C-alpha cells in the first residue's frame, strides 16, 4: 500500500493537515497573470515560492512558465522588501521587457507588512516603470484561502487596474473565467463566437499555456487578454462571471468601478450549468441561442440517455476546488450518479449552502467538507469506511486510487502525470461529452478487467 498508514479510524483533528486538497495563493496569482498578454508574474518573497510555483505550473501544463522573484534574503525579511522589489522592477523591465509586471505577495512579504501598493507607487514615482508599461499588484497571503483565492485576487487586480469606463458603450460582454484549462478558455471563446457575441475573456491562458512547438521560444506567447481589451471592459454591456470563488471580486470591481452589471454563475460543467451559462450569455449579448448550440447540447443529452445504465447509482468521491466541484456534483446527480464524498481545502461558507441547494433531498447521501480542515487524508478515510466506484480529483488522487483499486478521473489542479487536459475542454456541452467519455472509459475498463470470463461483454 502506498498510503499504508491511512486507516478508516478518524480522530478529531484541529491542527494537522494531511495530504491537502488545496495549495497556497501565490500560484493562483501567477496562473491568472499568465492569462494577460505580455505580462510577467512576479513573486514578492523568497526565491523558493517562485521556484515552486513555476515548477507546479510547468508540470501541469508542460509549458514554459516565466516568472520573476524578489529573492528575499534574511536582510530583506528584517528590513522589508521594498528595495528588492524596486530593484526587481528595474531589472525586469531592462532584461525581460514585459508590458506588464504582475506582482503578488507571499506569506513572507505579508507577514513583514510590505505594502505593495505603496512600493509600486514609488516605483512609478521613481521612473522605474517605462512609459506605456504597467506594474500591477495583488495581495495574496499564503495563510488565507487557497490557490483559488490567489487567482481571484490577481484577477480582481488586473481588472481594477485596467478597465476604464468611457462614454462609448461597447457591444461586448466581459467573460471572467474561473481557474480552468487553456482548452476551456479556448472553448469559451468558441462558444461565444458561435453565439455571435463579442466577448473579452479574462484571463485567457489559451495560446500561452498550450503554445505550439515552433523551434522558437517566446517569452510572451501569442495568447492572453491584451491591454486594449482589458481597458475596454469598463464599457461592456455586461459581465458574465463563471466560478464564484475565482471571479467574484473582479465582477464586483467592474460593477463598482465601471457600472458594468454582472451575472455570477457556476463554471459551465455539465448540462444544467452550461444551460445557465448559455442563457446568461444570450441575455447579456442580446442574441438568440443558435441551433448549433442546441445540437451540441443534444449530443450530450443523447450520450446521457444512451449510457445511463453505466452511470446510474455509481458512488463517486471528489476533491478539488469549489468552482469545479459544485457544477460537477450537479452534473453527476443529473446522471443519477451518487456523489458520496466531496472535499475541498478551499474555504468559503457558501460552499455548504450551494451543496444543499444542488443536492436537495439527496443531501443526506453525501459527506462533504471544505476549508482549512478538509483534506485528502480524511477523504481517504471515508473511502476506507465505505468504498466508491469512481474517484475524481487531481494527480494526488492516484495514490488513493491505486491503493483502493478505484477508477480515477483526473480533473483539477495539478494534473502532472497525464496530458490532454490543456488541449481538450471539460467546459460546455462538448466538455460534458469529454467528461462522460472519460467516466465511461474508466467504469467500462473496470468492468472489463474485473468481470469473470463468462461475463465479459463484447457490446457495452
Amino acid at each position: 500500500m502506498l498510503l499504508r498508514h491511512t486507516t478508516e479510524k478518524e480522530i478529531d483533528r484541529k491542527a494537522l493537515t494531511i495530504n491537502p486538497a488545496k495549495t497556497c495563493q501565490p500560484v493562483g496569482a501567477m496562473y491568472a497573470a499568465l492569462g494577460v498578454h505580455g505580462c510577467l508574474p512576479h513573486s514578492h518573497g523568497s526565491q523558493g515560492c517562485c521556484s515552486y510555483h513555476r515548477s507546479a505550473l510547468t508540470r501541469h501544463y508542460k509549458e514554459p512558465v516565466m516568472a520573476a522573484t524578489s529573492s528575499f534574503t534574511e536582510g530583506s525579511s528584517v528590513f522589508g522588501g521594498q528595495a528588492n522589489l524596486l530593484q526587481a522592477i528595474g531589472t525586469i523591465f531592462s532584461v525581460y521587457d514585459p508590458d506588464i509586471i504582475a506582482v503578488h505577495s507571499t506569506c513572507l512579504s505579508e507577514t513583514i507588512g510590505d505594502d505593495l501598493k505603496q512600493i509600486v507607487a514609488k516605483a512609478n514615482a521613481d521612473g522605474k516603470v517605462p512609459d506605456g508599461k504597467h506594474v500591477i499588484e495583488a495581495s495574496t497571503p499564503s495563510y488565507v484561502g487557497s490557490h483559488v483565492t490567489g487567482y481571484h485576487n490577481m484577477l480582481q487586480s488586473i481588472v481594477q487596474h485596467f478597465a476604464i469606463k468611457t462614454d462609448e458603450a461597447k457591444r461586448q460582454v466581459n467573460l471572467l473565467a474561473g481557474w480552468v484549462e487553456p482548452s476551456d478558455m479556448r472553448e469559451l471563446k468558441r462558444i461565444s463566437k458561435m453565439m455571435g457575441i463579442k466577448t473579452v475573456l479574462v484571463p485567457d491562458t489559451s495560446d500561452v499555456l498550450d503554445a505550439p512547438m515552433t523551434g522558437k521560444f517566446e517569452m510572451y506567447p501569442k495568447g492572453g487578454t491584451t491591454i486594449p481589451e482589458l481597458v475596454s471592459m469598463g464599457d461592456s454591456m455586461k459581465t458574465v462571471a463563471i466560478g464564484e470563488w475565482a471571479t467574484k471580486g473582479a465582477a464586483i470591481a467592474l460593477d463598482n468601478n465601471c457600472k458594468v452589471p454582472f451575472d455570477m454563475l457556476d463554471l459551465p460543467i455539465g448540462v444544467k450549468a452550461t444551460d445557465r451559462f448559455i442563457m446568461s450569455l444570450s441575455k447579456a449579448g442580446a442574441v438568440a441561442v443558435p441551433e448549433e448550440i442546441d445540437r451540441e447540447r443534444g449530443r450530450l443529452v443523447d450520450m446521457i440517455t444512451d449510457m445511463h445504465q453505466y452511470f446510474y447509482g455509481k458512488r463517486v468521491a471528489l476533491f478539488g476546488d469549489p468552482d469545479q466541484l459544485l457544477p460537477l456534483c450537479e452534473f453527476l446527480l443529473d446522471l443519477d450518479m451518487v456523489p458520496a464524498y466531496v472535499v475541498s481545502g478551499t474555504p468559503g461558507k457558501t460552499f455548504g449552502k450551494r451543496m444543499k441547494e444542488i443536492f436537495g433531498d439527496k443531501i443526506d447521501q453525501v459527506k462533504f467538507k471544505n476549508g482549512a480542515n478538509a483534506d485528502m487524508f480524511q477523504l481517504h478515510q471515508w473511502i476506507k469506511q465505505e468504498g466508491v466506484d469512481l474517484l475524481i480529483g487531481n494527480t494526488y488522487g492516484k495514490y488513493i486510487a491505486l491503493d483502493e483499486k478505484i477508477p480515477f478521473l483526473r480533473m483539477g489542479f495539478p494534473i502532472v502525470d497525464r496530458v490532454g487536459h490543456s488541449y481538450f475542454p471539460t467546459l460546455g456541452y462538448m466538455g460534458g461529452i469529454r467528461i462522460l467519455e472519460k467516466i465511461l472509459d474508466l467504469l467500462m475498463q473496470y468492468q472489463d478487467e474485473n468481470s469473470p470470463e463468462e461475463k465479459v461483454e463484447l457490446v457495452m
Partner: protein
Amino acid sequence: MVKKKDYSAGLPDPTPIIDEIISKYPSKVAKKRKKAMVANDPEIDQPVQANVRTIPGIITQRGCTYAGCKGVVLGPTRDIINLVHGPIGCSFYAWLTRRNQTKPETETAENYMMYSFSTDMQDENIVFGGEVKLKEAIREAYKLFNPKAIGVFSTCPVGLIGDDVHAVSRDMKEELGINIFGFSCEGYRGVSQSAGHHIANNGIFKHVVGNNDRPREGKFQINLLGEYNIGGDAFELERLFEEAGITLVSTYSGNSTVESFAYSHTVDLNVVMCHRSINYIAEMMEEKYGIPWIKGNFIGGSSTAKTLRKVAEFFDDAELIEKVEEIIAREEAKVEAVKAAIKPKVEGKLAMMFVGGSRAHHYQDLFEELGMLTVSAGYEFAHRDDYEGRHVIPDIKIDADTRNIEELTITKTDNPELWRDDLVAKKAELEKKGYEFSHYAGMMPQMKKNSLVIDDVSHHETEKLIEFYKPDLFCAGIKEKYVVQKSGVPLKQLHSYDYGGPYAGFEGAINFYKEMERMLVTNVWNLVDTPWKSEPEIVGSMTINA
C-alpha cells in the same frame, strides 16, 4: 530549429558571449553577473563568484532554504513524519515531487513519504502565533501514526512571528517520548537551497546521529553521503556494495531511515557523492568520531569502478579487492557493449548543464564516455569549492547571508569506544601513499579549455547560450525544460531525470547511454518545421480567394 555547430577543433573563446550576455543588464547587475562567468582554463585557478544572492528580478533556477532542508536532505527519509510548520504551500510543493525512491523493509514498515504533513497556518496563527497549533498537530500526528520521529520544518513566517520550533519540539519530545526536533529553515535564509542543506546536516547530526551505539556488523562498513536515490540510483549502488560484501550502514538520504542515521557514526568510512549538500555531516563525523571521508562518484562506468576501487583500497583486504575487481570486470563489459553501440551515434554532440550542486560536474563523466562535449556548465546552488576544489575553502569570503547559518562546534566524543583511533591511524598511513581523503577537486579542472562556467545561470543567459552554442542537449530542471525545448533543443532534467533512471553505477551508465540515444538520435525534432515553410506558394503568397 537551431543549426548545430562544430567544435571538433576546440572551443572558441567565450569572452564575446559573456560580453553580449551582460550587455543587456543594468550596469550594476552586469558587473555582478560577470564575476559568475568564467572562460575555463583547467590548467589555472580562476575564482568564480558563487553562493551569493541572486539579483531581485532575475529569473533564476534557484529555490529556497526550506527546499534544501526539507525537500532535499530530509525528504528522502521514510520513517519520520516531516511536519511542515507554515501555510499549506510549502508542504504541498514538496509532496512527492523529488522522486526519492524508498523501499521499506516490509509491506507494513513505516513509510510516510507519500504523505504531506502541514500545520496549514491560517491568518490567526500568523497574528497570534502558531506554537499552540504546532503542538496540537504533533499530538495529532502521534495519535494517528505513532511514529518514532517527527521533524518540524520552519517556513518563512515562522521565524518572523517568533514561533520557536526548537522549544516546541523539545516540549513535545518530552511529552510524547519520541524523537522530535526542529529546523530553522525559513525560505529567506541563505541565498539558495544550499543553506538548507547545511541546516539539515546540522539538525540530523545534533538530534539523530549517535543516538544508537549498536555494535558494528560486517567487516567493511561505510555510509554513502549525498545520494538521494533519484530514480533508484541508491538501489543500484546498494546492489554493488552488497555483492562486494561492503556493509552500507546508512545512506544520506536516499532509501534511508532515521533509525539508520542514529547508528551511522559506527562506520569506518564516509563516501561523499554530492559534496555540496552533505560534506558537513562528513566533516562533523570525522571531528567527533575520527571517521575519515573520501569523495566518490558513481556517475559513469569508469567513475563507478574508480570509486569502488578506492573504497576497497581503503579497507586493504585482498578478498574484497578481488571481489570488487570481479564485479567491475563483469559490469564494465556490459557497459562497454552498450557504449560501443551508442557512442558512434552521439559522438561530438554538444551538451550544456546547469543544475544542482554536484550533477553538473558528475554527469560530465557520462558525456565524456560517449564522446560528447560539455561546452558550458554551472551549478545552481554550489560554493566556490565545488567549482575550484576544496583548496580554495580558506579563501572563501563569508558574507552576511552565509554567516547567519549556524556553524556547529563539534568536539571529539568523550566515549572512547566511539572515537576511532584505528581510523585516524589508517588515514595517516594511506595519505602517505597518496590516497586522498577530504578531497574534492571541483568541476573546473575537468572541463575543457574555453568551456564557459556560469554560476546561478539566469533565464536571459540560458537563451543567449542556446543562441550562441546551439547545443544538442541542455541539462537543467523542470522550470527550464520547456523553455529550452521550445527552441528545438532537447532538455534532460538532471534533478528528476525526467522520471527515468537510475543513472548511477554500471546499470545507470547503461541507462544513460540509452537515454542519450533516445534523445539525440530521434527524428522528432525534424517534425518541428512545417513542410510548407519552404513552399512559398503555400505560405502567404496567395490570398484567400475561394
